[in-house]
């Protein structure tokens, strides 16, 4: 896709600015403007144009968001689209006539590219360039990373990989460290396991502990039994020693009782009873005489008091009379005051009558003249209802006038409506066009399919390599069968395998021979064996001298020394040969072995030559065959893959044909529909443009049909409104007439009621309201007069009469002597007499009470005398005596018997208390059977035995306690369970760490592996192309880019013209930026080879470059511009001549 024209309609600082970017063979456009001229705006505008204006766009400082608008004409594959873009949620794309375009209309031009990807892949600015250069440096020597980052336009690959590796390392690594999560959890596991081991009690431990406790408890029980036996004996002997004296006392008292004989037993307190009775008799007799005398004196005083019973009985009536006198005390003066009040009210009434204009009359006549309440209420109602009736009348008449105006307006609207109809042909054409569906989308889809098929065909063709033949030729090729090729390849593989095997074997043999030669030489050097030849040679030399001596050629004297030396040498050699016989043999064996190896090597060379000849012959045969087929130079090994590639090409070609025919069919249908629709629209006198897109025609036709329908509905609605308006007017007129009638009726009723109320018939509403108020005031004053008379004056007069009546009654009954005196004086005297009578009554009551008390005390004293006499009588009877003295003797005997008996019982009780539960008989028997005198010795013996047993027990009792403590430690505790829980906790942590480790470690490894593979596949083409660009950019300072295969990881280096290599770290910042630029451009070119082209936006790329370098940069971009549109934004005017020169004047320069 390319942009043919960019319209900055309302965007940023631009208004209606259009920038033409016409197509050229080298599609390069230079947009020049000083800083702030809007270059950044332009770059943003292209993004917003293609992908929508951003929600919070900051380019609204001149045109508000709602008015922002961009436009363009874009081209792709011979098609063009003119559109504009607005800022909204949906339907932001419009056609030139302002009709909305489908949201996905750009998909055919942009493919699946999104905003982020476009900006990343097709946008490059100075900052990105510098950042990219820095990232190259930080990626250090990792070529894979550099290539990937440059191609993807991202710089975070290293960070991603480092983060993954760091996380994996924090989780687990071979070296144990408490910082690693897995090992930290593993330490927790070890602690928990130790705790578990510590807390676990095995069943056998418990059984052993229980057995120990049982055995020790048995021993302790035996010892306790023995102790108990000793204790029993000791207790028995001590008991005997204790009770012996008590038993003796018991027998003594028994004897004394027998001597006292028979005794009458009297109560223990008999003596006291007798003495007390005698004292009481004396005291009670004296009291009785005193109280009898006091009773006589009180009775004499009572006889002298006389009570007035009638006066006392009338006390309530006298009090009532006194209270009534208090009530009526002021009544007479009050009656005078109330009469004066009545006079006041009447004067007020006379005043009101005069206002009404009525004559002054007495009270009765005035009451009859006042209008009654119903009449006054009727007049008040008439006054209240008048305003409502008057308003209703006026409103009804106004409503009739309003309705007339409304009907007039409706008539005008109806007259003003246009008459519209739509032809049936337009309707049918519209239906037919709609039935085609979303033609644009289908067309885009088919276009996309076609483009895809073509790309696939293109890609498939690359598989054919140099044998890229015409389709027809490809189709008709007669290729050998795959079986035949397989056989040939099998043969070739066999030859190659044999050659390899034989060569390896030969190399091994050569190596063995070299080793053997060396071995022989070294052996010889080490052992100096004497061979037969050497010995023969030395002997030969000796024999020559001898022959010379024998023949006389040399005088003996002269030759002797030499001869002796030679003899010695030969003998020495012979001896040495004899001594080194084994080494000689060994050396011979080594030399034989060497010969064998050399022989084998010779054989092997012949086999290699033979195999080579056969292979060559086969290759020649295949080359001839390939020529014949029409594939000269086709290697046999490539034939299989080529066959498949040919199949793919044929397949892809068929797909292209299919896609083209489908697209043609669709285009034909769409064109037909467009023609029919366009004709129908023309028939409707609609303004149509034959060049409109089908979608726009459909929208226009829809508008026409819908417009006509809307007009019809509007007219029908207005007609309805007119009919209902006329009906409503008649109803309103009826209402107005009714209101007028109601007002008339009111006026008649008004006159009648006013006259009845004694007022002038022509009085208006205000006057009548005033009269009604005066009526109310008069009525209120008359009411007050009547109230005073009835409730106040008359009541007080009745009270005074009642008081007089009651005073008379009491005078007659209680004080006839007072008759003739005033009621007030009578009441006062009777009250005084009542007070005196009540004082007498009180004294009489006091004396009566005292009399009763003295009488009771006298009776009590007499009772006590009788009781004391009766108290002594039972003792006299029991002791069979008749006098108090005889009784005293009997009492003394009884007391002596009691003392003896008590002493006996006490001794018996003491014996029983000390008997440990034994009976007296048993104690006696025990005493009889024991030698009391021997007890101390026996006790001493038992004490010693007991101490021994006790010591034994003490010694034993500690053991079971300890054993029990041990056993009781096993009491169902949960420490082991808790430790196991902790262990599981640690295991869970280890599992979590391990799971995460597997993920991140694998991810890190995969990333390394993939980046390595990426390098392998891309470094060839990408580095070659990037090297060319880099060389240009650096003005030949660097010749190409090379890989240092010796370093690990592989490093990227630039090669100078003199062959010198420079690593990335050794490059200047500027050179690194150029390297990044070269890599980006190379990656983009590779990308464009397999996908849709889009405009490349270069924003002020060469700001730090000198002219020569900037020119080199433009050259690099000119090559890119042959593949896709390049829009170069710059604020450097001086780049314009450079560009003109690079592009030979054929460059579009736009000044902002």
């Amino acid at each position: 896709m390319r942009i043919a024209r960019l319209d900055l309609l309302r965007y940023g600082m631009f208004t209606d600015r259009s920038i033409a970017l016409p197509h050229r063979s080298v599609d390069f456009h230079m947009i020049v403007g000083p800083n702030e001229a809007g270059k950044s705006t332009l770059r943003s505008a292209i993004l917003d144009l293609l992908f929508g204006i951003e929600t919070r766009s900051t380019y609204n400082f001149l045109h508000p968001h709602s008015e922002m608008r961009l436009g363009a004409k874009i081209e792709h594959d011979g098609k063009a689209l003119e559109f504009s873009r607005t800022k909204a949620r949906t339907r932001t794309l419009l056609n030139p006539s302002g009709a909305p375009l489908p949201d996905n209309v750009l998909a055919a031009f942009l493919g699946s590219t999104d905003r982020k990807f476009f900006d990343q892949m097709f946008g490059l600015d100075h900052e990105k360039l510098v950042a990219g250069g820095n990232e190259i440096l930080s990626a250090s020597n990792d070529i894979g990373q550099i290539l990937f980052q440059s191609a993807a336009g991202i710089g975070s690959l290293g960070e991603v990989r480092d983060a993954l590796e760091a996380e994996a390392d924090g989780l687990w690594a071979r070296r144990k460290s408490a910082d690693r999560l897995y090992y930290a959890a593993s330490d927790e596991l070890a602690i928990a396991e130790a705790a578990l081991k510590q807390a676990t009690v095995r069943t056998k431990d418990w059984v052993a502990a229980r057995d120990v406790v049982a055995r020790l408890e048995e021993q302790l029980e035996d010892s306790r039994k023995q102790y108990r036996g000793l204790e029993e004996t000791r207790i028995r002997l001590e008991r005997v020693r204790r009770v012996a004296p008590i038993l003796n006392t018991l027998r003594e008292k028994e004897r004394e009782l027998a001597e006292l004989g028979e005794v009458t037993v009297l109560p223990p307190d008999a003596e006291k009873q007798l003495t007390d009775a005698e004292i009481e008799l004396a005291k009670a007799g004296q009291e009785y005489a005193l109280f009898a005398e006091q009773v006589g004196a009180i009775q004499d005083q009572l006889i002298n008091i006389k009570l007035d019973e009638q006066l006392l009985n009338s006390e309530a009536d006298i009090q009532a009379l006194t209270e009534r006198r208090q009530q009526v005390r002021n009544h007479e003066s009050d009656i005078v005051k109330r009469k004066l009040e009545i006079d006041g009210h009447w004067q007020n009434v006379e005043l009101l009558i005069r206002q009404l204009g009525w004559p002054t009359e007495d009270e009765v006549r005035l009451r009859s003249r006042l209008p009654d309440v119903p009449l006054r209420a009727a007049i008040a109602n008439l006054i209240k209802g008048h305003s409502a009736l008057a308003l209703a009348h006026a409103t009804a008449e106004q409503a009739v006038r309003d309705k007339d105006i409304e009907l007039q307006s409706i008539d005008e609207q109806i007259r003003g409506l246009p008459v519209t109809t739509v032809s049936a042909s337009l309707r049918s054409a519209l239906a037919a066009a709609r039935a085609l569906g979303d033609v644009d989308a289908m067309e885009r889809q088919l276009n996309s399919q076609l483009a895809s098929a073509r790309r696939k065909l293109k890609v498939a063709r690359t598989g054919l390599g140099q044998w890229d033949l015409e389709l027809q030729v490809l189709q008709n090729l007669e290729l050998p069968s795959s079986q035949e090729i397989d056989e040939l390849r099998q043969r070739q593989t066999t030859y190659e395998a044999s050659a390899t095997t034989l060569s390896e074997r030969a190399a091994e043999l050569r190596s063995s021979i070299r080793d053997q030669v060396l071995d022989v030489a070294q052996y010889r050097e080490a052992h100096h064996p004497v061979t037969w030849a050497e010995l023969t040679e030395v002997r030969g030399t000796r024999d020559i001298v001898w022959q010379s001596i024998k023949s006389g050629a040399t005088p003996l004297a002269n030759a002797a020394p030499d001869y002796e030396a030679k003899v010695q040498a030969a003998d020495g050699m012979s001896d040495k040969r004899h001594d080194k016989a084994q080494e000689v043999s060994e050396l011979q064996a080594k030399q034989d072995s060497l010969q064998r190896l050399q022989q084998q090597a010779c054989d092997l060379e012949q086999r290699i030559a033979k195999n080579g000849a056969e292979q060559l012959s086969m290759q020649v045969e295949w080359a001839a065959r390939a020529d014949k087929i029409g594939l000269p130079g086709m290697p046999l090994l490539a034939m299989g893959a080529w066959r498949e590639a040919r199949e793919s090409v044929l397949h892809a070609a068929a797909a292209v044909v299919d896609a083209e025919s489908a697209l043609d069919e669709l285009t034909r249908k769409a064109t037909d529909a467009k023609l029919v629709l366009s004709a129908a629209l023309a028939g409707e006198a609609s303004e149509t443009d034959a060049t409109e897109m089908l979608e726009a025609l459909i929208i226009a036709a829809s508008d026409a049909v819908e417009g006509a329908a809307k007009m019809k509905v509007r007219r029908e609605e207005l007609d309805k409104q007119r009919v209902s308006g006329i009906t409503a007017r008649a109803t309103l007129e009826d209402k107005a007439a009714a209101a007028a009638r109601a007002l008339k009726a009111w006026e008649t009723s008004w006159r009648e009621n006013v006259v009845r109320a004694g007022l002038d018939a022509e009085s208006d509403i205000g006057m009548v309201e005033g009269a009604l108020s005066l009526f109310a005031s008069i009525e209120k004053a008359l009411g007050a007069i009547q109230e005073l008379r009835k409730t106040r004056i008359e009541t007080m007069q009745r009270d005074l009469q009642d008081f007089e009546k009651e005073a008379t009654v009491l005078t007659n009954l209680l004080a006839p002597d007072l008759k003739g005196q005033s009621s007030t004086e009578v009441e006062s005297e009777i009250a005084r007499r009542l007070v005196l009578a009540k004082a007498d009554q009180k004294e009489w009551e006091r004396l009566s009470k005292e009399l009763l008390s003295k009488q009771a005390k006298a009776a009590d004293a007499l009772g006590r005398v009788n009781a004391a006499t009766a108290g002594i009588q039972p003792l006299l009877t029991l002791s069979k005596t008749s006098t108090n003295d005889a009784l005293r003797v009997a009492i003394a005997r009884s007391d002596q018997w009691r003392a003896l008996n008590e002493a006996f019982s006490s001794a018996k009780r003491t014996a029983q208390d000390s008997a440990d539960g034994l009976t007296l008989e048993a104690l006696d028997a025990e005493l009889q059977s024991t030698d009391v005198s021997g007890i101390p010795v026996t006790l001493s013996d038992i004490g010693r035995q007991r101490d021994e047993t006790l010591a034994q027990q003490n010694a034993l009792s500690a053991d079971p306690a300890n054993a029990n403590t041990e056993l009781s430690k096993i009491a169902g505790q949960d420490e082991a369970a808790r430790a196991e829980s902790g262990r599981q906790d640690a295991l869970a942590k280890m599992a979590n760490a391990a799971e995460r480790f597997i993920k991140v470690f694998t991810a890190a490894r995969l990333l390394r592996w993939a980046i390595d593979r990426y390098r392998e596949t891309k470094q060839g083409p990408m580095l070659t192309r990037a090297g060319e660009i880099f060389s240009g950019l650096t003005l030949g300072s660097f010749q190409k880019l090379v890989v240092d295969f010796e370093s690990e990881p592989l490093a990227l280096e630039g090669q100078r013209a003199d062959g010198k290599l420079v690593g990335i770290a050794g490059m200047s910042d500027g050179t690194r930026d150029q390297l990044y630029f070269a890599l980006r451009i190379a990656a983009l070119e590779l990308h464009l080879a397999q996908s849709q082209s889009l405009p490349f936006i270069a924003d002020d790329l060469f700001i730090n470059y000198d002219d020569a370098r900037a020119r080199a940069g433009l050259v690099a971009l000119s090559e890119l511009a042959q593949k896709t549109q390049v829009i170069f934004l710059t604020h450097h005017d001086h780049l314009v001549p450079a560009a003109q020169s690079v592009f030979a004047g054929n460059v579009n320069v736009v000044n902002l």
Partner: protein
Amino acid sequence: MKFIHTADIHLDSPLTGLASYGDAPAEMLRTATRDAFTNLVNEAIEEEVDFMVIAGDLYDGTWKDYNTGYFFCREMGRLNKADIPVYLLFGNHDAESEMTKKLSLPPNVHTFATREPSTFRIERLKVALHGRSFKEAATTENLALKYPERVAGCLNIGVLHTALEGNAQHAPYAPCSLAELSAKGYDYWALGHVHEHSILQKAPCWVVFPGNLQGRHIRETGPRGAVLVTADETGILSVERLFVDVLRWHHVIVDVSSAQTLADVVQLAGKALERLVSENLEGKPMSARVTVMGRTIAHGDLFSMEVHLRAEILGQAAAVGIHKLWVEKVRVETTPAADPNDIKARADAIADLQALLEEAPKDELLLRNLAEELQQLVGKAPFELMDAVQDFKSIRAGDVVQIVKTVSPSLIAHLVKAS
């Protein structure tokens, strides 16, 4: 009459898979199986049941601590005091445990013999209980066949530890069929061994697995406990569940398809946990596994920030259910929003990388090296991790293809995000 039927108590068996962290109610749950059993005994005493039946697997077979047995005796002592007899049958785990033979049980506990089926009669209630304990763990004969005939005039209860016919989740011990059980003419079969509660058959012959008393790992989710059976001499009247567990396991699956960022995912997970807590009317502590799934843009972030995600979700859990909610694990099972074809359509370096990674499962050398490196971890790990970490088995077998296939799309999503 009322009785409790329980089984598979596994006293002092630990809860597995729970890694403690700051707010996790760890200490509270260290003795979960014990606490559940104590709850059951409390229920028995409060409900005044007439007797209790334990259908096997009181202990964990390999558990050695005698204190566990002692604890059991102590709880039985409480039932003894309340005059509640217990009929105890030993299962495969008990047969394996060395405690079983040595423990002196209180007089109210009656154990079924191992040599042949035995019958206990409760004359007062007219109940006959038939059962046979496991002598050894691997008992694969059909024990039910030799159970005695029903006792006329009694409520007949068969007590049996069995996997029934082929329960795949459990070892196939003492196999038998429902038809064979029905044929005995008993009123109620009190079964044990299968940890899931189920009523396989109702009147006239009830066949019931009460389920285990306390869920111990994520495969044992939902409420756990025993059953309370009401009956008279004519048969069973009702079977109700008694939930006595002290911690309940839940698997919370959160669809995060709508999430754009990790924060969105955390918020969705938080809401799901809040819902879980609000539905937990009993207020019991809970352990939840949170699995996030769905096709989401956040997939790349979730992969790279899984640890952060876990921390955030733990925070959410603490906020909605402090001291009551334990997050067992956070599993990320999302898929990338961009499908491989979308990535391929970019035709850029990322697309190239994706194509390369698709080939990774075929690269023998890569797989061998990766397997060898991962085996360093697996080789030294405790045996128990083999079950806990899914990938360990395949790594041990030298097979890492699946791991590579799973990780590759996540890696790509992560790189797309990073770019």
